[in-house]
């Protein structure tokens, strides 16, 4: 395949940045999207130009490091995959592909396609944990039975990889799906209920301070989420938050 790439180039956080066109040929459908970018970078380096910076690490769809807004969608046009698992067979010969960073005020661009998602970490610092010491003096695991249905739902929520596709896809740059997933994981487990009130109040407060927008239930996040995290988690977050607010 031969492709035209329109890629966002931005030297650093203070640079204004712009879209730049690149031509690339000889792309096989079996390549992953990032392998296609590797090839582009190799060609750029050999030409003495600056390679395109992008985040990536595990390349098997689980670490959540890769991002990219491809042809107007987070992680590109395929469903249930991250960019590293998006394969070039999804594109047609001669196609023009737009490649942009995840955009949100809370995710400032570091360079080119690399953004700073530490706002996500700070939300977790505010309460994304159960306060048990890791000393090992805990009770036997099987003394806390958990209804299988709840355990499965908690797991589904916990599959969030923290990539930020929800924020990137949301017209409001809302982080509600991300937070909803974490709140749900703990809200569904007996271990998590003890601190539920403080957890949700503190985490929502932090989320708001980070400058994410408000959820307007467009559902874009659920569609673009590579792990298929459900909107039910946002509803649960709303419930948890409202009941926590009433409790004070």
């Amino acid at each position, binding site marked *: 395949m031969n492709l035209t790439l329109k890629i966002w180039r931005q*030297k650093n956080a203070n640079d204004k940045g712009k879209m730049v066109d690149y031509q690339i040929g000889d792309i*096989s459908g*079996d*390549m*992953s999207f*990032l*392998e296609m970018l*590797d090839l582009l970078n190799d060609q750029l*380096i050999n030409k003495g*130009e600056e390679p395109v*910076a992008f*985040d*990536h*690490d*595990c*390349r*098997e769809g*689980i*670490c*959540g490091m890769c991002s990219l807004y491809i042809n107007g969608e987070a992680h590109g046009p*395929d469903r*249930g*995959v991250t960019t590293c*698992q998006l*394969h070039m067979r999804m594109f047609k010969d001669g196609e023009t592909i737009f490649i942009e960073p995840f955009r949100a005020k809370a995710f400032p661009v*570091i*360079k080119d396609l*690399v953004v*700073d*998602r530490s706002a996500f*970490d700070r939300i*977790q*610092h*505010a*309460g*994304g*944990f*159960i306060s*048990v*010491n*890791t*000393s*090992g003096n*805990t*009770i*036997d*695991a*099987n003394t*806390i*039975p958990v209804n*299988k249905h709840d*355990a*499965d739902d*908690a*797991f589904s929520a*916990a*599959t969030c990889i*923290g990539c930020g596709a929800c924020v990137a896809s949301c017209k409001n740059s809302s982080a509600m799906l991300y937070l909803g997933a974490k709140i749900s994981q*703990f809200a569904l487990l007996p*271990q998590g209920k003890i601190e539920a009130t403080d957890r949700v109040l503190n985490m929502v407060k932090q989320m708001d301070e980070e400058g994410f927008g408000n959820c307007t239930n467009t559902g874009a996040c659920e569609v673009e989420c590579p792990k298929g995290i459900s909107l039910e988690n946002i509803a649960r977050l709303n419930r948890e938050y409202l009941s926590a607010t009433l409790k004070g």
Partner: protein
Amino acid sequence: MALDSKTPQGPIADKWTNYKNHINLVNPANKRNIDVIVVGTGLAGGSAAATLAELGYNVKAFCFQDSPRRAHSIAAQGGINAAKNYQGDGDSTYRLFYDTVKGGDYRSREANVYRLAEVSANIIDQCVAQGVPFAREYGGLLDNRSFGGVLVSRTFYAAGQTGQQLLLGAYSAMNRQIGRGKIKMYNRHEMLDVVVVDGKARGIIARNLVTGEIERHSAHAVVLGTGGYGNVFFLSTNAMGSNVTAAWKAHKRGSYFANPCYTQIHPTCIPVSGDHQSKLTLMSESLRNDGRIWVPKNMKDVTAIREGRLKPTEIADENRDYYLERRYPAFGNLVPRDVASRAAKERCDAGYGVNATGEAVYLDFATAIQRYGKEQATVKHLDANDKALIKKLGQEVVKNKYGNLFQMYEKIVDQDPYNTPMMIYPAVHYTMGGLWVDYNLMTTVPGLYAIGEANFSDHGANRLGASALMQGLADGYFVLPYTIGNYLSDDIRTGPISTETPEFVQAEKEVKEKINFFITNKGSHSVDYFHKKLGKIMWDKVGMSRNVTGLTEAISEIKALREEFWKEVRVPGTNEEFNEQLAKAGRVADFLELGELFAKDALDREESCGGHFREDSIELSGEQKGEAKRDDENYAYVAAWEYKGEPSAAVLHKEELEFKDIELKQRSYK
């Protein structure tokens, strides 16, 4: 220097308890005055950082990713072992200990492994308390599955992403401490050197990967939880950023590097599809619970398949060679990883590989789908003779167990594994070798610790499935927090460590010089060019099967490649920016040294053990004919290499392994 493992005296079952009863402790007020640096935030580093902070130490944690949650432990799929015996199938601490030592082909230190088995059960308690959503049965209790090389079900799991859930548990424990200010987290920072002051590790030099700033960080002890070095092969199941740099810098500063040649080649990975490939993807070992591995029995079928004239589903059962079941009837498809990998290579080398490259075998779920389908039909009182229904029901069960893996396979290969067998081939996955540590997990540099995959200690020459997660968390949550206290009890009066000492100045200068070299060198090839070449040498000559000729060639080829690298490498951009190529250049430079030591170690060990298979050391007759042959008389030792400039000049130190509680036997899975 003689290697002293500092293993406590006494019966093996009491060693750890006795040890804990007699170590020196640091009182809570003094812990506040002690700093610890933890590099790496995977299961080992993350759990260590959290626990040390809870204990009261001031922790500085470093990771090169943009968040500690992204460390490569996250990619572990199958599960975590623990001797809970919840299934009542005869498991015990001793049995886990025994299986691990045997699985490691008797090349691990007994006392360490026993301790690992001993604390394993507690890991599960800990993780459940943290809210890790393990798989459960309908009664609400924890579920188990079975893994390769063992005869019990002791593996706890969370679908096909156990590593992610455990790491998020450790990450949440870290977050709690970050929120309290007890951990200072440095994301997007890469450690580029250890600073040793008066013979003790007292800090690190790190590069801020966003700004390029070179920073000095001091502490009373330094802990490396920086993972393995499988990426020396270029293609592996490791993350793109996984590297040996931290461990290698420690080696250069005096830590011995143990058993570098012990590499685990994982049998079930998605085969290479072309030259563009940047990494390999693992399909969890848990798939071998239900998948049967085979190649066609007849060469004409192989040819027909490669030419696309025949589909694997069209080959009758009697024309298939289920070679693991044939060769190892007792363990069948669940033999340990090294055995399964070599068997696949044997079939492919004999010409029976089933894809265009000839390097793939089938992993087939049709039998399991039938079995589960019939089970479900019985449970649901449905017609057990309706073939379509049975298939549908069976596929649903398989989807529940392995859905995410099947989906991943389909996305990558573009074939539906519910209806056609998966193609798999072995790939580099884990490195059992690593920094030599004593019973305290301390390297030969006082105050410098190595935990998790970064050390060498628990898996011998081959790691059993679901044991890496166990070791990482055991080290971080339960072992290091005790052992490091014993060391730090001497430091309660030391006070803050200055970063202005000549050692810090010198280390920083060396780091800056190297970076400056990369930036200014006007070479002709990109970093990846060298990395790929190194990977090819390693895979071809130091891979699944090794011989003297190949290893000797590898050593000289790697040396030559290294020399070329230092002349011809080209790194674009500057230091004062986000520059991935620059970071990669430093990592590949270290791989180019490690690779040679790796080959040297493999050449030196004239036996086959675990993941290290020497073609000149096989059983020549008897029931085990053709299987790997260990040489306990001459090689029952840990090979710990001391750095002396060039890898070729490295000096070998031996830690003789004593087996008092387990009888040394040939590993038989027949």
